[in-house]
Structure formats: C-alpha cells, structure tokens
C-alpha cells in the first residue's frame, strides 16, 4: 500500500535562518511528543505501576512495600481449586469456554453469512445493516435486551408457552452451570455481523478470473469454496481472529449487564474478577496480578501480529 519505503524524512526543511531552520526541523517531533509521552506514561508507566502493585501486599489502598509474588501464588493455587470452584477457577474456565465458542461461532457464522450474501442476491443493501447494527449498540444495551429475552418468566420460554409449546424449558440465565453460554449467545449476536462484513469484503476482493478458471476446470461450488476461496481468505481469518480474541479477553460489560455476574459469580470472566477483587473485595494486589495475567495473554496474541504487520509495511 505504501509508496514510501524509507525511514528518511520525506521532506527536508528549507534552508533559512539557522534558528528558524532548526525549529522547523524538530517541529514535527515537538507536535508528536505530547501524544507519545502520554502513551509512555499512561499506558506503559501505568502497566509497570500495576505490575509493581501485584508484588505488594496492597489491600484497600496501595501499599508500596514489595512482599514478593504472593498474589501470583494465590492465583496459582486457586487455578486448581475446582471443588468448590474458586472465583479465579470459575473466571478462567469461563474465559476458555467463552473465548473458544465466541471466536469459533463468530468466525463460522460470519463466513457462512458472507458466503450467502455473496451469491449475487437481491436486497443486500437491506440485509447488511440488519446483520451489522448490533455492533453499534453498547454491551449494556445488548445485555439488557437479552436479559429480558432469555428470562424464563418473561421472554422466549414464556412466549413459546403462549404458542402452545408448554414443555419448553430454557433457564440457562439462572443456572450457574449454563449462564456463561448465554453470554456467548449475546456476544455472538453482537459481533458476528461485523465478522460477516470483514469476510464479505475479503470475498469481494478475490479476483474473479481465478474463480472462472476453476469453474472451467470443472470444480463444483463446494470444491471452489473449500479448495480455493477459503484458503485465499486466510488474511481475513487472521484479522478477524485477532479482533475477536482481544474483544473476548476484554469482555466485561456484557457479563455485568446480562447476568450481574451470574448466580454466585458463576458468569465471571477474568475482567470481572479483577474489578471485583480490586474495588469490592479490597484485594488490590490480587486484582493487579489478575490484570497483568490478562495483559500477558492479550500480548501473546497481539505482539507477534503487530510486529509482522508493521514490518511488512515498513518494507
């Protein structure tokens, strides 16, 4: 995309009076400096600060005497405390279930809808916004809507009873073992249309000559998609995966609005764990340690991706 392949300044400031010239020379850096400084302090400095707090004994208020990796040791111990499950155990198993299903279903459904939309159908202009509008809503609104929709006494269950299907039973939102799956349902509803839009853009970018050639060679539609089109969409899979994975790890609002944490905190994700331990249970060190673990998980996905993206662009 870039036509600029150098790290040299593109513009060499005009030679005028020395002071003016020198000022002109560094002016761009001066303009950028505040933003960069803010990022360094408020992002990286604060991360370091949180990391530091995780090695202290902070409870309600920060304390700055280092006391070793006690918070991490506790989290590690809780990781295996499955009966009865510790809050941390619940949070990370929920994270695994939610992350796997949310990313998986969004990718599958998004691709499926995109392929359907790509069949030269009429009314694409009507359907696209319908699949995409949930993305414009706040997780809180989504949570409120689905909380009502999934409420056994009011929503879907009640409606189907009205229609005569009285044996229908659906109370996942009140069930501690299934409540996390309702978060998956609402999350998929919100994000899958966006994934569809990404895949659709990818499909539209494929050279039609390739498809024609394959069809002339006698490939069936199924083969065409399996062997040619889906492999060509690999970069879209990657970007969609990155976006979804980091949204999954950052998910917080949806759990709060949809389930209020679920019965006994059974719908918690690590983000909810962090918030509760830090601000409600006065275990600041443990909360900080969990935040650092979240950050490291996201970094493991994002850093290699950004590195390869930026390197590619610089070339």
């Amino acid at each position: 995309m870039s036509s600029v392949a150098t790290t040299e300044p593109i513009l060499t400031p005009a030679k005028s009076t020395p002071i003016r010239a020198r000022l002109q020379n560094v002016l761009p850096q001066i303009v950028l400096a505040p933003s960069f400084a803010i990022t360094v302090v408020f992002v990286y400095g604060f991360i370091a600060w949180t990391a530091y707090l995780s090695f202290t004994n902070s409870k309600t208020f920060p304390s700055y005497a280092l006391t070793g990796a006690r918070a991490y040791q506790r989290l590690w111990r809780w990781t295996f405390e499955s009966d009865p499950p510790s809050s941390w155990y619940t949070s990370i198993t929920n994270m695994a279930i939610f992350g796997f299903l949310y990313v998986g279903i969004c990718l599958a459904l998004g691709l499926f809808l995109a392929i359907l939309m790509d069949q030269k159908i009429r009314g694409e202009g009507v359907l696209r916004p319908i699949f995409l509008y949930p993305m414009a809503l706040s997780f809180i609104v989504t949570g409120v809507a689905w909380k009502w929709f999934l409420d056994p006494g009011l929503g879907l269950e009640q409606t189907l009873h009205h229609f005569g299907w009285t044996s229908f039973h659906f109370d996942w939102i009140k069930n501690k073992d299934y409540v996390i799956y309702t978060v998956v349902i609402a999350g998929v509803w919100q994000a899958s249309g966006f994934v569809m839009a990404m895949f659709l853009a990818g499909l539209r970018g494929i050279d039609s000559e390739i498809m024609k050639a394959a069809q002339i060679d006698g490939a069936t539609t199924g083969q065409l998609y399996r062997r040619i089109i889906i492999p060509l969409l690999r970069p879209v899979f990657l970007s969609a995966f990155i976006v979804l994975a980091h949204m999954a790890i950052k998910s917080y609002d949806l759990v709060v609005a949809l389930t209020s944490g679920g019965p006994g905190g059974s719908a918690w994700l690590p983000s909810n764990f962090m918030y509760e331990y830090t601000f409600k249970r006065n275990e600041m060190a443990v909360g900080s340690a969990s935040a650092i673990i979240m950050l490291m998980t996201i970094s493991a996905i994002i850093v290699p991706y950004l590195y390869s993206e930026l390197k590619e662009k610089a070339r």
Partner: protein
Amino acid sequence: MSAAALSHGQNNRWIGRIAIYGLLILFAILYLMPLFVMLVTSFKTMDEIQNGNMLSLPQAPTIDPWLKAWGETCVGLTCAGIKGYFWNSLKMVVPAVAISTILGALNGYVLTKWRFPGHTLVFGLMLFACFIPFQSVLLPMATILGSLGRLGVTLQDQVGLSFGLGNPTVNLVIVHVIYGLGFTTLFFRNYYEAFPNELVRAAQVDGASFFQIFRRIMLPNSLPIIVVTVIYQFTNIWNDFLFASAYAGSGESMPMTVALNNVVNTSTGVVEYNVNMAAAMIAAMPTLLVYIVAGRYFVRGLMAGAVKG
C-alpha cells in the same frame, strides 16, 4: 444436453436460490428479534407485558414508559429519570472525540509525512495501547485522578478556580482522550500513508510551513477519515462502561451506560420492564442513529480498527 436434464438443473438452481434467501431471511429475523422485542415492550403497559406475548405488537401503544424513563425513573436513590445522565454522556463525548481526533490527525501527519528515525517504533508503541486490557491501567489512573481531584480542591480554595480538576466528566474526557489516541493515530496514519507526497513536497517548495501544509492541504482532503474517526470514537466512548463505572460510578455525574445499568438493576418495588426497555432504547439511540445515517463509514472504521490499513 437433453431437455429433461436441463430442467432438472433449473430446478436445482431454484431450490438453491430459495434456500439462500430462506436462510438469509431467517437470520435477519433472528438478528432483529431483540431490537424488535425491546421496541414493542417499551410501548406496552405493564399489564400487557405480564399477561401478553413478548412478540405481539402493543394493543394500546403508550409513550408513558419513554416519558417515565426520560424524566421520572429511579437511578439508585434519585428519581429524576435518565435525562441528566444522557447529557452527562454528551458532555463527555463531544470534547473527548474532538480532542482525540485532532491529536490523531496531527500524529498521523507527522508519522507519514515528516518521518524520523524510529517512527515505526513510536507508532508501534502507540498502536499496542489500543489492545491492552484497560484493567491493567485502571488502578494507577484512579490514583492519579484522585490526586488531581485533591489538587482541584486546593486550587479552588487558593485561587477560587478548580480548572475542572476532580470533576468526573472532565476526568472521563481525559481518560478517553488518552486511551483513544492509539486508534485515532492509527486511522489517520493509514489514511495519510496513501496521500501523495508530491503534493506536500510541492507546497513546501512554495514555502508553506508545517502547520500551513496540515491546514491547507492535509485537512481539506481528510473528510472521509475524519468522519470514520469521529464515528468510531463517538461509538466507543458513548458505549464505554468500564472507565465510566470505575471513575464516575455513582452520583450525579454518571454517564448513560452506568445509569442504565443502575435503572435495570434497581431492586426496589415492581420491576417496570417497559421503562427499562425505553431507557435502553434511549441509551442506544445516539449510536444507532449514527449507524443509520453513516453506516458505511461506521463499518470502515471497524475494519480499520482491525489494523489492516
């Protein structure tokens, strides 16, 4: 090919088309369902909700739930509706979007047209900030905002003016500008990268300064990306809940999302579902409106947020 085989092929084609449309319409209904239910519920009376069917249209449509949500419903202990919180959100969103967009445009301009050694590293560090879980900066920020608040009180006593320090809305503006910078810089950088350098160089030969080039050449050509950035930031900041609940989680200064969550989870008395739904619709209205008016740009922003420039 015989006529029979041909018509067989035609039949198959028709079945395929019907299946495609059938599936698409089915999914469209599923996607619209929650919004539809929210909307019809917000126009029903409580009687009808308790005894009726969630999918049926309101038999006696009433806008009372909307009026009540706007002006009377209880948020925590105060019962003055959500209107105040709606304005809180607006007062927070407008400056936060404006400042972060302007800074992003300047950053993007420098990072593409006035490159210096290490510009990729600088950009990479700013970009990574988009992806961090905000939990990892939540506590230090709370501490700093606390100190700023105390400074504000001191200034108020000494000088008679707090400069907005300690005001929750101002705090949230600061927070959203800081953590939105990565995104706005990304958008403008990717856009300006494709902007012809020759134009910039020509202007410079003519003696235009750094800011003149920005104002006269870059900005007039930036309308699409400005729209994308403004929409993206507006949606994100309006919809934010984590920062809002951490730094303005109670009292008069709550933003809309926090207030909505409180309305819905207020456990005193009978739960008025119609009012809750109306409140949710009001909270969703601004971003939904933006999406309806400028959906194309909205999608483009989301895509650009996926880094692919």
